[in-house]
């Protein structure tokens, strides 16, 4: 069981480290958001899964109800994380584009073209 928890924590850590490195390697706010989404989805998902596995294994050791509560709370935290991560990244991207920060090295930008054609904001 310790082995499984170690593997889950290891995968989570690797992806969190990669997400942090992406903040330095990527050029602008949009590509950096891609990197940090990876952090929260895979990194934190796997570290939270490790906590769930730990809680369940401790529960089946001695049927102590506290560990079920621990696992349940972590599952609720994962759900909250997924929802807030998606909406937060979307809000950041939309606000940056509205403030006039254009994506660097972009090969195509349909949003800016449509705004220019329409002469204002899309929504």
């Amino acid at each position: 069981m310790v082995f499984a928890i170690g593997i889950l924590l290891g995968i989570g850590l690797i992806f969190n480290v990669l997400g942090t490195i992406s903040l330095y390697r990527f050029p602008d706010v949009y590509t950096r958001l891609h990197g940090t989404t990876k952090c929260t989805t895979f990194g934190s998902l796997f570290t939270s899964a490790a906590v769930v596995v730990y809680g369940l294994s401790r529960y089946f050791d001695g049927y102590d109800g506290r560990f079920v509560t621990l696992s349940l709370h972590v599952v609720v935290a994962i759900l909250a994380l997924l929802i807030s991560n998606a909406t937060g990244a979307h809000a950041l991207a939309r606000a940056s584009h509205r403030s006039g920060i254009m994506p660097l090295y972009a090969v195509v930008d349909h949003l800016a073209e449509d705004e220019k054609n329409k002469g204002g904001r899309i929504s």
Partner: protein
Amino acid sequence: MVIFVASALTYLLLVWAGGAIEWLEVVIAIVFGGLMAVMARRWNPDITLRHSWLNPIRLARFVVYLFGPFLFALIQANLDVAMRVITGKINPGIVRIPTGLNGDGALTLLANSITLTPGTLTVDANDKSRELYIHWINVTNEKPGAEDICGTFPKWARRIAE
């Protein structure tokens, strides 16, 4: 009423410790559920919760979607973006995709799924023409359809939330 039941059940789930639930906890759950319902009504009187979200078949489909195609796309996209972080090869751009979804719930579900999978990020949405503007880290096709970016996600969103 929906909010009342949902928050009371959530409270009971959070205090549940693997055994029987004390009656005092049930009383507290009912009190907090009522409080939440009143607060939600005060906060937004126009709040509409469609009952189709409580349909068990739709909820079952949502769970299947979460652990089937969504998880698969998540793993694929994570490995792809991980390689891009290491090699630094990017080819970004903002593309417009038609979704063909009518419901607001379905569009929200699709936009959130797209943002959660790394490599694609919803920047803006056009409510009238039901199109999404997606920042895509690797543009291979300058006029993509919905399948190029998110695979079978729109179909699932239609089945779950419309």
